[in-house]
């Protein structure tokens, strides 16, 4: 498999996963805001804080209101982190990797892209936004399902899983970041009584609420949610679970060098994170550290497989 193809396929999977994650995040946040009292100081702004895009946002928009933020996060093709930009990048990557994937995979992504492009203007309206996000979520799921049903478990497939799980691990840590932000603002005022709702929404953002209930049999509380989302070994979007998928893929691929050892190191690190009675500052520290480590692993993957330098 060509290094260049491997890189494109890895990014394809990352961008599709990112598209899905942004869609789910906005969806869940919208639901959360509907549940909170109108006078609570808790708004759309948090969504641009979690991936530190507030600066870019304010260069383009004046007010951080629902209309502007959803437009920015979903439809803005000049912001590289938007849903539409991710989907466009996914489409570019699959367009240039069609030789390795089933036809239907390209058609699926292309269809989703055409749908999004046609409906970009509808996202500022809540009702239309719900429909838009549902279509996107379904489309991403179809894509993932299609590959799992049609593709051999070959090297390209390993790169797809690798990309998907790298993005997932990163996104889970960012969503936990969101929780920490929400908590900090809630500690002192009346939002405290809504803490449970906040944590439930964090779980929902990762499609993990049902699984949490089955597993923990407990009242939804911060420490347990944190533990569950970081360390549970069965939940597909927990950091631990992503790491073990990453590890499987890396072991399957040729010339993996010291990457397997690096993943073990990361797993050990996550295992050792203390999730009880963490303060907001501690939590932020842990998550920053974790995100840096995931970024580091990404760089190693890039170095190892994508940048074959020939000695000519």
């Amino acid at each position: 498999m060509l290094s260049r193809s491997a890189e494109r396929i890895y990014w394809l999977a990352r961008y599709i996963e990112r598209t899905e994650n942004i869609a789910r995040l906005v969806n869940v946040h919208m639901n959360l805001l509907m549940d909170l009292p109108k006078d609570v100081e808790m708004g759309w702004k948090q969504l641009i804080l979690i991936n530190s895009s507030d600066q870019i946002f304010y260069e383009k928009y004046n007010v951080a209101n629902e209309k502007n933020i959803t437009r920015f996060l979903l439809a803005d093709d000049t912001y590289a982190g938007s849903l539409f930009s991710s989907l466009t990048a996914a489409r570019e990557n699959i367009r240039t990797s069609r030789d390795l994937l089933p036809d239907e995979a390209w058609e699926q992504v292309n269809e989703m892209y055409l749908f999004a492009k046609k409906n970009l203007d509808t996202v500022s309206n809540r009702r239309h936004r719900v429909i838009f996000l549902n279509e996107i979520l379904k489309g991403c799921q179809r894509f993932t399902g299609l590959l799992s049903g049609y593709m051999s478990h070959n090297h390209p497939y390993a790169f797809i899983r690798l990309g998907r799980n790298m993005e997932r691990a990163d996104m889970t840590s960012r969503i936990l970041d969101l929780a920490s932000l929400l908590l900090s603002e809630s500690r002192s005022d009346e939002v405290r009584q809504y803490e449970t709702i906040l944590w439930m929404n964090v779980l929902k953002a990762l499609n993990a609420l049902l699984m949490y209930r089955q597993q923990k049999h407990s009242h939804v509380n911060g420490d347990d949610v944190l533990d569950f989302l970081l360390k549970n070994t069965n939940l597909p979007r927990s950091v631990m679970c992503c790491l073990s998928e990453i590890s499987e893929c890396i072991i399957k691929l040729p010339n993996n060098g010291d990457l397997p050892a690096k993943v073990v190191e990361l797993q050990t690190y996550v295992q050792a994170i203390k999730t009880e009675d963490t303060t907001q500052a501690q939590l932020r520290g842990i998550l920053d550290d974790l995100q840096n480590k995931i970024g580091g692993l990404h760089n190693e993957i890039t170095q190892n497989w994508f940048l074959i330098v020939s000695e000519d």
Partner: protein
Amino acid sequence: MKSIWENYKTDVAYDELMFSEYQSRPVSHQLCRYLDTLKKEDIDKRKAAAELAIMEMGISFTVYSDEGNIDRAWPFDIIPRIIAAKEWRIIEKGLKQRLTALNCFISDVYGEQAFIKAGKMPGEIVNSSKNFRKECVGMKPKHNVWANICGTDLVRDKDGIMYVLEDNLRVPSGVSYMLENRVITKRVFPELFQDIDIQPIDDYPTRLHEMLTSIAPHQNGQVTCAVLTPGIYNSAYFEHAYLAQQMGAQLVEGGDLVVKDDDCVYMKTIQGLEKVDVIYRRIDDDFLDPEVFRKDSTLGVKGLMRAWKAGNVALANAPGAGVADDKVVYAYVPEMIRYFLNEEPILPNVPTYLCSNPDDLEYVLDHLAELVVKPANESGGYGMLVGPHATEKEVASFRDIIKKDPRNYIAQPTLSISTAPTLCKSKLEPRHIDLRPFILQGQDTFVTAGGLTRVALKKGSLVVNSSQGGGSKDTWIINMGDK
């Protein structure tokens, strides 16, 4: 209710399907009977279904002038063009004969030049051709075949005869559209495939792969084939990716390949460097190897010519094959067939005036308003003059252009190229068409059953090139109980 055939004009040119508004040709009886059972709304629905399929399949052809829009959907007309198998068998034979002669000619040009020495063609034509590559002199590609993939453009004139308009021997494109058009037609008119005996075309990628394998330098063990594309911004990128996928070959860009000190070509993979045996290159000679041709090329591979000359990699088409893809050389193809094969040409050429020839030049300059003038080396319908459709000013400026560089221009009578019914706003209208069959030559020779029919969608237009806004149709070769 009005018929979709109302006012269908067959007096413009030879019509492929119809004798008149009311009478179909034998080849199209079944199709027309079927179309008569459909209501106008049904036909519109089928057209919409085809358009949706094209969007979703992402079939695209870049048109450079469409700025910022790199995948304009490919215009497709749902009404197929039909040719009887009986006629096709003769055309097929003629195409094989022609490519065989062309390959003999190219081998001869880079070898003894017996054709020129025998006085059959002025040597000047080869020497002044910018597609003659002196680096290729003395090379002997496998099976003595230089042009492995050829797209030959055919047109039918008023007299009903199919003429060869040109031979595309460099990097002919369009075959993926031929294949996709069939896929769409099967979706849109599945009923027709039940009753009509239409020859299948979907074996092309397999045949292409077989041909590529047959020219590999070594026949032991597995042959690694790659399709070399200039990349995503090339107008035919879709086709490159499509063919690679269909053949299970690697789609590579110049940067993915490297030629090492052993003069072998390798691709950069996740397992390290892997040897490549055959490259189906979709890059022009000029950009193939900065070591030999254009130094500023970033699309090619440094050392590729070295590897080819050392016999370590096969290139299809071979570098230098374009010497026969020249509209001046074209005029000599009938003579090549007689000289090299000792046969009479099965398919006629369009009469051609060579502006390099003083008598011809005089005639051309005097009759510009009736002729089609083409540059010898351009493809894609660029830089040509269609006399009868040009303004006086255009004719005058072209006269100066020709006088400056007569070698580079040829002229042909304006053919009244045939038409076929094409769906225009819920109604059928005649539109001019041509046909590009694809011929593969390696150890064996293969011709596609039909080819890509291109259609000039603008009323009255004769320019069918996809790069100039033409569209295409599915092409059926049908058996009519006369096998």
